């Protein structure tokens, strides 16, 4: 008798321990990336009626390749935005990293050196951003706005305002990495897919990811819990810059040339993609799948307008519209919850 009551107590306790507000699927239904994904499917269905070209392999190839670059950058941006920060310098950084890669490879160094130089330049910019923001407590908006101007300017100076299209001995390999495909999937899309899975793992299973999310939720509490908040914030900006550097490396390979205008105004698209993908500028929210999904929606809008014969000048209008709608939707859902 006592045995059974004790057991049932233990069971009740156990059921409290493992009880959740909702199941995994229900949880997914509540996330913004899911609803943006639904919007993508809906637009896709409509477009398959509007245009014969839409569902072709070629069109898919183009759409996915085009958004891969933004998706890669949005993965890094979502980490920054999760800490309630922002990085406006990613577009300019692409120009700088692209030019650095070009100059190094043009000088006859191999692709390994080119890659290290590219990522090194990116990491330095991220490090400067991060140190100013974390240790000197400057506003991320101001620091990265300054870096936006400075990176672009350095790119102009070191490129001497000239286009680079000679990438030395490894030119073919370089152009293959950025421009070709494996199993019918463009290489940048492979990179995006792999990185998305890595980021998913990081947000879910790594201590670092947990700490970034905690800092976004309550930086003071994180600090009191012994988390090295400053160092984590620096690492987040370095990571974001490295994602932009990687995107530049792939993009230059695809174009087969680079000018110091590479990535001009990309920061706006990247931030928009990140926010459409569910990031909250107040911090504390991050979804690995939000970045590619947000980027995909933006490219899909561009592609759809093109195929539907609507003037390309409308493109920015619709991107802006979706951005505002996404944030509005998020707010309405939040209000419903509390």
């Amino acid at each position, binding site marked *: 008798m006592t045995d059974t009551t004790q057991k049932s107590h233990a069971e009740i306790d156990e059921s409290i321990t493992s009880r959740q507000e909702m199941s995994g699927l229900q949880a997914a239904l509540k996330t913004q990336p899911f609803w943006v994904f639904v919007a993508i499917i809906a637009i896709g269905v409509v477009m398959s009626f509007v245009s014969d070209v839409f569902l072709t392999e070629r069109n898919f190839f183009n759409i996915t390749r085009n958004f891969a670059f933004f998706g890669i950058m949005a993965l890094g941006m979502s980490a920054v935005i999760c800490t309630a920060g922002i990085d406006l310098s990613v577009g300019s950084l692409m120009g700088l990293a692209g030019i650095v890669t070009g100059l190094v490879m043009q000088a006859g160094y191999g692709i390994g050196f080119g890659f290290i130089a590219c990522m090194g330049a990116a990491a330095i910019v991220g490090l400067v951003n991060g140190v100013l923001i974390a240790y000197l407590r400057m506003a991320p908006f101001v620091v990265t706005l300054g870096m936006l101007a400075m990176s672009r300017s350095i790119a102009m100076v070191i490129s001497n305002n000239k286009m680079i299209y000679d990438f030395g001995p490894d030119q073919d390999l370089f152009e293959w990495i950025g421009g070709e495909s494996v199993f019918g999937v463009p290489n940048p899309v492979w990179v995006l897919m792999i990185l998305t899975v890595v980021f998913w793992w990081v947000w879910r299973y790594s201590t670092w990811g*947990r700490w970034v999310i905690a800092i976004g*939720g309550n930086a003071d509490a994180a600090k009191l819990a012994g988390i090295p908040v400053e160092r984590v914030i620096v690492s987040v900006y370095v990571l974001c810059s490295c994602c932009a550097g990687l995107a530049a490396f792939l993009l230059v390979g695809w174009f087969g040339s680079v000018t110091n205008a590479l990535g001009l105004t990309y920061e706006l698209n990247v931030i928009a993609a990140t926010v459409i993908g569910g990031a909250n500028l107040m911090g504390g929210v991050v979804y690995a799948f939000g970045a590619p999904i947000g980027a995909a929606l933006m490219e899909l809008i561009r592609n759809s307008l093109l195929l539907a014969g609507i003037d390309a000048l409308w493109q920015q209008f619709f991107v802006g519209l979706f951005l505002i709608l996404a944030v509005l939707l998020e707010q309405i859902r939040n209000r419903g919850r509390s």
Partner: protein
Amino acid sequence: MSLLELKGVTKSFGAIHALQGIDMTISEGEAVGLMGDNGAGKSTLMRIIAGNFLPTAGKIMINGSEVHFNKPVDARNNGIEIVYQDLALCNNLTAAANVFLGREIRKKFGPISYLDHKAMFEKAGELFRELKSETRPRDLVKQMSGGQRQAVAIARTRLSDPKLVLMDEPTAAISVRQVAEVLNLIHRLKDSGHAVILVSHRMPDVFEVCDRVAVLRRGAKVADKQINATSPEEVTGLITGAIENA
């Protein structure tokens, strides 16, 4: 030898003298109530002992040797845990994630270590059961009641086996039933040899669980008495200043 000894601890924030020459000792397993009006300096004293900031002047000794806590982790490593008045939780994380924040349980797979969610949920569940709290480890703190948040903050102190637990107004925002549970917990902490400093506004709480009561008024300690040598009326008088000191 006393577990914790404060000698002339003073803290100024610019022109504000939050604490002036506080002397105090706490022995192992002792529960001390710390009382005082709003702004008397109670939280400031707790935060100095917990390593949030260094005192402007004065010494902190643990087991007879002087310590300098430059950050909260230093205090924790010396066996001091604290429940902050504002609880210091991350609303966007689960209860279990908050309990283990900064002390996550990890598993290793070759060179890669990753968060052991299962172990953390189970251990957090165990801690909440010990606290007789119906807090669910997987719920977000955002959705929790004041009592559940309190349970999360208290559960954090149970991860290590601290010698001294500081509680800053743990019963201010919770229901009557939960107050009883928190007081029970303090009894249990005492029984297992833990020392406790309880900051509270509630006279009955202090008189129920504490062995001693210290009173702060405008940053100075005006009384430090065994609980059975004083009365709620006297303590009230000391807090308000109706009684100068005792």
